[in-house]
């Protein structure tokens, strides 16, 4: 070490005393305390006695002693609330010296910086996690949008197909209606529509004429199915029951009661016209003998 003038050495000693609060203990090979001094009380160390087993008194010494020739350094040991010490252990012929130097100022400075650094690090980890979560949610949303777009596209195609089908059906229905109207109005055969409660909703002139009624009678509600269709005999009751199920009557010669009470026999068959209102449509013609 460089030779330093006494005033400098004294100044350094005073500075060390002020800043580092040096304290020491000397421990023999058996762990017994043989000497101590310095600012031990500032580290909360008191009540020491000669030859006492110092490790029993100071927990941070347990397991540390004896030290090997290289010595041991324990930085920043909290000795009491808010007091930290750098602790050096080194062997000399007298035994193991334990030197404590105040590290509180350094610890506080480091603590502030370290707290800030770790807080930032934790915040960064949180942000990374949030980023991963958002990425996951975004991916899921993109998938859902893609799936819903595909479903929407399929629905549009299906609706277009249904619309085309509906148009075809409407055209077919209109054609069918036209043909029916033509048949109805031609009066080539008698046509009558009736419902389960006996109301005759429609009948063409030839049918009405076959049983002696006029169109005006129909308009005034003077004609009902039960009125013109006589009580079925046993055989026809079965047909009547079938009609309840199917709204259809097989082709047969069937008696009808005319307006004047007489009976006329017509070749007659019927089929369903509208299921919801239990409406049938019947076709009648004069039997050929």
């Amino acid at each position, binding site marked *: 070490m460089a030779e330093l003038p006494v005033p400098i050495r004294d100044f350094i000693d005073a500075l060390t005393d002020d800043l580092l609060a040096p304290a020491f203990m000397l421990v023999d090979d058996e762990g017994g305390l043989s000497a101590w001094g310095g600012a031990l009380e500032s580290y909360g160390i008191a009540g020491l006695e000669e030859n006492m087993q110092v490790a029993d008194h100071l*927990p*941070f010494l*347990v*397991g*540390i002693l004896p030290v090997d020739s290289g010595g*041991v*350094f*324990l*930085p*920043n*040991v*909290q000795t009491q609330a808010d007091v*930290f010490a750098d602790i050096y252990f080194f062997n000399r012929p007298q035994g193991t010296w334990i030197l404590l130097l105040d*590290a509180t100022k350094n*610890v506080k400075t*480091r*603590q502030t910086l*370290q*707290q800030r650094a*770790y*807080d930032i*690090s*934790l915040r960064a*980890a949180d942000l990374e996690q949030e980023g991963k979560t958002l990425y996951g949610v975004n991916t899921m949303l993109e998938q859902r949008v893609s799936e819903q777009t595909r479903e929407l596209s399929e629905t549009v195609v299906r609706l277009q197909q249904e619309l085309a089908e509906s148009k075809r059906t409407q055209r077919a229905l209109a054609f069918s209606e036209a043909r029916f109207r033509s048949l109805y109005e031609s009066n080539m055969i008698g046509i009558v529509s009736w419902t389960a409660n006996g109301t005759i909703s429609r009948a063409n002139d030839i049918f009405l004429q076959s049983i002696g009624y006029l169109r005006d009678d129909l308009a005034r509600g003077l004609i009902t199915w039960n009125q013109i269709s006589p009580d079925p005999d046993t055989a026809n009751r079965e047909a009547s029951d079938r009609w309840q199920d199917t709204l259809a009557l097989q082709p047969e010669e069937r008696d009808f009661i005319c307006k004047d009470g007489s009976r006329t026999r017509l070749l007659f068959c019927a089929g369903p016209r509208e299921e919801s209102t239990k409406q049938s449509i019947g076709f009648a013609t004069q039997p050929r003998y």
Partner: protein
Amino acid sequence: MLGTFAVGKTSLVRRFVESIYSGKYHTTVGVKVDKKVVQVGDQETSLLLWDIEGTETEHEFRKSYLRGASGYLLVADGTRQDTLYKALALQTRAEEAVGQVPFLLLLNKSDLADQWQIGPRETEALDQKNWTVINTSAKTGHGVEDAFLALAEKMVVKTNG
């Protein structure tokens, strides 16, 4: 207490020694030594708990803090997967310093189940190591007493031969 920063080492010690918990994170600089007497079987045992500062990496870890240790608790934060891998690396460093002494792995913050990041792959890897792993929560106290007592038992068994 070994583990990277902010995994809850200080909180676990405070929960075990003083039965208190604070949710605010205060970084530890250096080391704080606490003492607690526990009953292991019919034997009273003094546990000297060295709450050692966490580090970013295992290379920054100061081995002198482990001098004379009879055992250690490796602590990881179950909500931060990387802390588990850092704990594994620290275990290697610890074994270099003190040899094969008893230790347990604590997966802390088990109260934050919805943020848990220890999945089947990590669990399977730990199973293969045949380590004792305990889920703990310094906040609720779940598993804390069990963990320290389990380590004390292991250390007593090893000491008694």
